[in-house]
Structure formats: C-alpha cells, structure tokens
C-alpha cells in the first residue's frame, strides 16, 4: 500500500513539475516573443512638394528628358528615381496608365501584362491576380514617372539599380540586352533584374518577381509644380508597410539630379 502511494505521488509530482516548468517558460517566452517584434508605427502618407536644393519648387516642364532625379519619399530613408521619360532623340514619351499584377511570372511568355484601365487584360494574367493601378505619366507631356529605387529582389539601391535610356542599352552586361517596349530599362546590376520604366516598372527579367513600387505624382498645371502623394504597387522592399520603420518626409522633399 505504502509503496504504491509513494509511486503515485512521484508520478503526480513529475507531471506537476513538468506542467509548472513548461507553463513558466511559456509565460516568459511569450513576452520575449512580443518584445522582439518591433512595434509598427504606421504614419500617414505625406503629401510632399518636390523642391530643388534651394527650396524652390521643381518645374515639371524643366525636367531634363531621360535624366535620373532622386528624392526620398514617403520616409527619409526610402529613395526613389524620378524620370522624365523620352525616346532616343530626347522627345518626351507619354506613359499610359496600366493595371499591373502585384506578383509577376517573368518566365512565362509574355512575361508581363499590360492593359489600360478600360482595356481587357491579356490572357496570361490569372483571374485571381491582385492588381494595382499604375497611374501613368504626369506633366505637360504625361511623361514623368517615379519609382522606388530599392530593388524588389534583394534590396539593392540606386546606383546599383539605375535607368538606362533608349539607345544606350548597348553598354549592358546581358546579350542581347533586356530592354522594354520603348528601348529603355530600369536595370539592377546586383542580380540582373530588369524593369520596364515605360510600363509601370513591370518585371522584364527575373530574379525579381515583383514590379518596382510606383510613387504616385500629381502635377499642378497652373504652377507646373510636382507633388508626391502616394505609393502603389508592392510594399517598398524590406518594410512591413510603406510608412513603417523611419521618419516620414515633410511637406517638401528635395530632388537631386543624378550624377550618372
């Protein structure tokens, strides 16, 4: 009898100890897990006037064609490329609005999909694809666009990711050069992702599977001023949200001309 009782107590205490230890470890593990997840402070998407280094507004009609301009938006540490797109002869080219899938399959032919707001989608976009609206170019010739300068593959940044205007793609490491419909390309040297600047930065070539996020611009016709107002497309690389993880820019952002 006595012996049996003892064993029972042993077994009972073993279970009690096990539960107690597991419970306490969990009780500490949970707070540590929560603590390690950084708090997300989503701020409002700013609306920022694009200005030059002296604080004077940038004039849309004075932007050089096919030249890269750089500015940070929506956070002080998220760089973007601003381009007044043009053809080989330096004439601005109108950029059409599109609906673009968030995830692309660049290996399939055609490896991307176009389709204006009103047009039908091409058949290679799955019916379930999540689409976002690329607003097209702004400015007097509807040729000014802005994209995130952080590659969607593994986050390489301008100048590793840069714009190569039509006609200059011969300096490319790939042969034949991967170029977009109009001959220009946004090319990332890190692992060779290519995006079409004339079509909402859709993927021309892997490894990236997502287009570059688009910075939505607004052009004020009477003043010729430009505003950055939103980010559409995939979330900027390395962020949990477009306004997470940094201080937002103010209501003016400085635009610098690329030295390349």
């Amino acid at each position: 009898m006595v012996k049996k009782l003892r064993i029972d107590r042993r077994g009972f205490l073993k279970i009690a100890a096990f539960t107690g230890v597991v419970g306490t470890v969990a009780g500490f593990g949970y707070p540590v897990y929560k603590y390690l997840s950084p708090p997300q402070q989503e701020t409002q998407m700013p609306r920022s006037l694009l200005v030059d280094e002296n604080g004077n507004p940038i004039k849309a009609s004075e932007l050089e064609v096919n030249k890269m301009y750089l500015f940070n938006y929506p956070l002080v540490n998220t760089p973007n490329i601003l381009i007044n797109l043009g053809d080989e002869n330096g004439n601005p080219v109108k950029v059409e609005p599109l609906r673009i899938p968030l995830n692309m399959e660049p290996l399939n032919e055609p490896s991307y999909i176009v389709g204006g707001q009103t047009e039908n989608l091409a058949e290679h976009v799955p019916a379930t694809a999540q689409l976002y609206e690329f607003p097209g170019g702004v400015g007097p010739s509807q040729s000014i666009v802005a994209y995130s300068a952080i590659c969607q593959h593994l986050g390489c940044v301008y100048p590793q990711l840069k714009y190569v205007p039509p006609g200059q793609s011969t300096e490319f490491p790939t042969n034949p050069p991967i170029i977009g419909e109009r001959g220009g390309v946004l090319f990332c040297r890190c692992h060779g992702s290519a995006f079409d600047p004339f079509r909402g930065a859709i993927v021309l070539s892997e490894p990236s599977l997502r287009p570059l996020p688009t910075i939505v611009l607004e052009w004020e016709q009477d003043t010729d001023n430009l505003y950055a107002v939103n980010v559409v497309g995939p979330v900027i690389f390395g962020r949990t949200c477009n306004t997470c993880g940094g201080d937002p820019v103010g209501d003016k952002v400085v635009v610098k001309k690329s030295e390349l």
Partner: protein
Amino acid sequence: MPRFKKLAGSNSGSLFEWIVDRAGLKEVPFYRVPFHYLSIDMWLGALVAASMAWLFISGLLLLLYYNPQKPYESTMNIVNNVAFGKVLLSTHLYAAFTMILTMYIHFFKNYFEGAYKKPRELVWLVGILLLLTTLQTAFFGYVLVGDIVGTDAINVAKGVINGIFGLNLGTLISNMLLGTNPEETYTRALGFHVLFAGLLALLFMLHFSLFEAHGPTPHHKDTKWRTKPEKIDQKRKDLVPWFPINFLYMIGIILMLWSAIFIAVAVAMTQENIHPLINPLPGPPPDSPEAAEHPPYPPWFFLFFYKIADFVFLSINKPIDLGIITIPATPILLQAILTLFLPGIVLVLLPFLDKSDSRHPLKRPWITAFGALMIIYLVQTTIWGLLTPGQPVRIGQAILVMLPPLIILVIGIHMLKKGISRAEAGGQFASLLKRGSAAATAGLVMLFINSAFVFAQSVAGEGASAATRALEAALGIGGSVIALLFVAYLAKLKKELKELEQEGKTEQTQENLQQEAQTSESVESETGWLNVLALFYVILILYSLYNVVTIADPITGAANVLSYLAVMLASLYGLIMIIFRVMTEKYKPIIGDFGDIKPHLLAAAILLLAAYVNIA
C-alpha cells in the same frame, strides 16, 4: 520511450534521465554540502548571481532598442511603444538594485564570519573587485536613460571626480569616461556599461571557480568557529548529491529572487509619489519644466559618498606646495582617502592582517567593530545625503552623528571581548551583560548624545537650522541603536560559542543525523497536503500564463503583467521546494514544521502582494 531506453543503457527509462546521464549531471564536480547547509544564509552569493543573471538577460534584450544617439527618446520608446519593454527596463533597474543590496549582505556576512581566511584569500580579493565593478556598471547604466535623474548623476559624478583629483586631472578623467559632448557621453556610457558588465561576468566566473576550489567555509556550528577544518569533509555521511538536490535548491533560490524583484517593481509602479531615486520608470527629460523640481542626486548607492563629500572641514581648498609636487585645490580628496581608499586597503589586506585561528567575531574584535562601523556609516550617510543633499557639514555635526555609534561599539565589544579571553571573568561579564548592560549602555549613549549635542551646537554655530539639528540627532541616535543591536547580537553569539564548546564533538552530531535519517524511513510522513499544494501551484502557474498572454495592453498593464510573472515564478518556486523536500525526506522527515512551510509562506507573501497590485 523505448528508443531512449536503448540509448541510455540499462537503468534509465526516460528522456530526462538520458539527458541527466549524458550531461553528466550526477558527476558535476561541485563541492558537496550537508543537507542542513541548504539554507539561505549559506547561499547569499547565489542571490547576487541570480540578480546578475536577470540583468544579463534583460540588458541584452534592452540593447536591441537602445540608441545612444537618442538616449531619452529610445528609452521612452522602449517604455511606451515596445510590448513588454516597460517590464524589461524596470526589472533591469530593480535587479541592479537587488544585486547591489544582496552583494552588500553577502559581503558583510563573509566579513563577519571570517570567510576570507586561508585558503579563501583569492575568493575574497576577487569579491572586492566584483563589488567595485558592479557599482561602476550600475552607475553607467543609470546614466544611459538620459532622464533628469541620469543627467544629474553625470553632473554629480563630474563634480565628485573634480573634487577628488583637482580640476585638471579630474576633467581629464571625466572626459575619458564620459566624453565631452552629449553624443559622446551616451555612446561611451553604453560602451562602458556593457564593457564593465562583461568584466563582471568574467570576474564572477573567476570568483566562482576559486570558490569551488575549496568549497564553502564549514558552518561555524561544525567548526565551533575555529579555522580548522578549512574545508567540508567530502566523506561526511550527510552530504547531499549536487544533482538533483543542490541543483533544485539553487533553482529555487533564483526563482524566488526573481519573483521578489518582479513583485517589488509591480508594487513600486502602483505608488504614485515614489521618490525619483527608486522610481522603476524613467523620470522627465532634463530640459522639461518638471525637471526643475528634482534636486541633483547621484544614484542612491553613491549617496553615502555624496554626503561625505559635504564634510567641508576636510576640504583642501587651496593648492598645497609640497616642494616636489603641488596638490591642487581638491575639496574632496581627503574624504575620498579616508572613506574610500583607506577602507579599501584594509579590505584588500584583511586576509593577510587577520591570521588568528578563530572566525568568531569576538575573537577578531577590531575587525568586527570596523565592519559594524562600515554598515552604520553607510546607512547614516546614505540617509543624510538623501535628506540634506549638498549641504555642507561642519565638524561638530559629523561628530554628533558619527561618534556615538563608534563609542558604543568600542565599549560594547571591549566588554564582551574581555569576557571571552579570560574565561573566569567571562562568566561575570557575560552575566553582567545579560542582566542590565544593554540598559546601562543605552543610558550612556543618551548621556553622550546630550553632551555631543551641546558641543555640536557650539561648533556648528548658527549655521544649521533647528530642523537639521533634529535630523542629525536622529541620525546619531539611529546609528547608536544599530550599534546597540549589533552588540546585543554579539552577546548572543558569545553565549552560543560557550554552548558549542560545552557540547560533544561534531562527529556525534553527524551520527545523530544518520540515526535520524534511518528512523525517518519508518515515519512515512503525512504529506498529502504537499500534493494539494503542488496542484494549487500548477493551477496558479497556468492561470498566470493565461493572464500574461491575454493581457490587452502590456504597456499600460505592465504592473499587472509583472505581478502575474511574479506569481508564476513564486509558484514554480513553491513547486520546486515541494519536490526538493520530498527528495530530501531521508535527511529530515517532513513534519510540517516551520522549515517545511517557510517556502510556501514566502510564496503566499508574493501572492498577497500580487493581489494588492491587481486591486490597486
């Protein structure tokens, strides 16, 4: 678990036993101790180590969010935005406080018990280094927060360094430690905080391995306070195995201490008018209007020296030309030499000064008196510094506060000592003491304080207000009371020594123990209540887990989270103490006496405090 059965060999059947076997836990080469050594007064060092362990865990996690470029903002981000960040930062602070307090207790216990003697001199020396390093680490941590309390601490520290070393050398030193501009200051403070913490870890490992070389000093009941034997006989019959018995006891201590830290923070968080020096949360930023109300203080553990720095009668206010060198104006140099440097030297040399063959405090009377004075002066000057920070102290005031305890100690110890060295006279003195000497000494003290008061008034002149004088008299009386209690305790020790010497040999006690152990087998103890208690603890743990996980907002509900974590730790402690007791039944049967229920009373105390926090 058949696979493990195979893996482990013949007689071990579970994963647990497999781990025990492969980790060699049963053969851990730590010193083994008799069962009755497993009591808290023999394990004070474990308390210090337990605080340190939590400091390392929480500190390394805090490092993930702390930014020395924005000290205050990043701290407030931890407190106000990061989930459970408030819990981590506040327990880091209180664990540091606990570490300092337990370290002093550990230190004085070893001091009064003569644990520094041969062959443990090196353990003692490394221990002194640990004390200094801990205080340094805590200072730099305190600064890191960047609130008004921390910036005040920087300013006070700079003032003190300049006061000790003179303006030129002092500026050089504080620039090295804290840089010249705020950005440098916080980067350096962080660097030194982590650097000293690393040093602390290394020194602790050294301290512990040196300790393990000889094991704990045998209990004075076993040695009758003699220095021999120097080590615990590892062939004694009543030794407990390190694993699992000693191990469980140690885990129990860690859990209990952590639980105490957590509940202390939780209670402190519910107090509205808590003093900024012990507020578990950061104070206002230094440039805010609220900051104006904060008088500049160093961290509380440096308050004692902050007050001693006010002893203006020791100040060297003009450069002194000594021919070869000139001592610059150093208003706190003498104070530092007298109260930091010289005692430091004494402590370092202690094992080499004290070569007597007894560890009894009364056989080392002047060392005992010195130790008691250190405690009394630390307490007195700390409170004094808290109540009248930065107010200059004249010689008469210092005497009024600090001389009475000194006199009581000297007289008291002298009387007791005489009794011990001369056996016959001893009887007389002891009985004299027993009968009425406490009252007599108290009367003496009052007389003394009175005259000191008159003397001090004449020296202090009109400078001090009536309130300050009353405060100083209170401090003097308080110190005297501590001194009296100390003398009374020594008288008790003296009596015990007599009894010990009359008792038979220690071996006999051991045999008794063994006999007890044998009889206990038949006293199949009535321990059903332990099972019920264990079940209760498990339920408490799961209940607390549920509350921690479902807490809606760990930021505003930090005090509640802390109280549940404390309950969880206390319950696991209680559970482990049950298992510990059941496993040690053969050393001492469970009879439900005070020793058996003490751990559960402690756990109950935590539970009550947790209930208080959740109601408040």
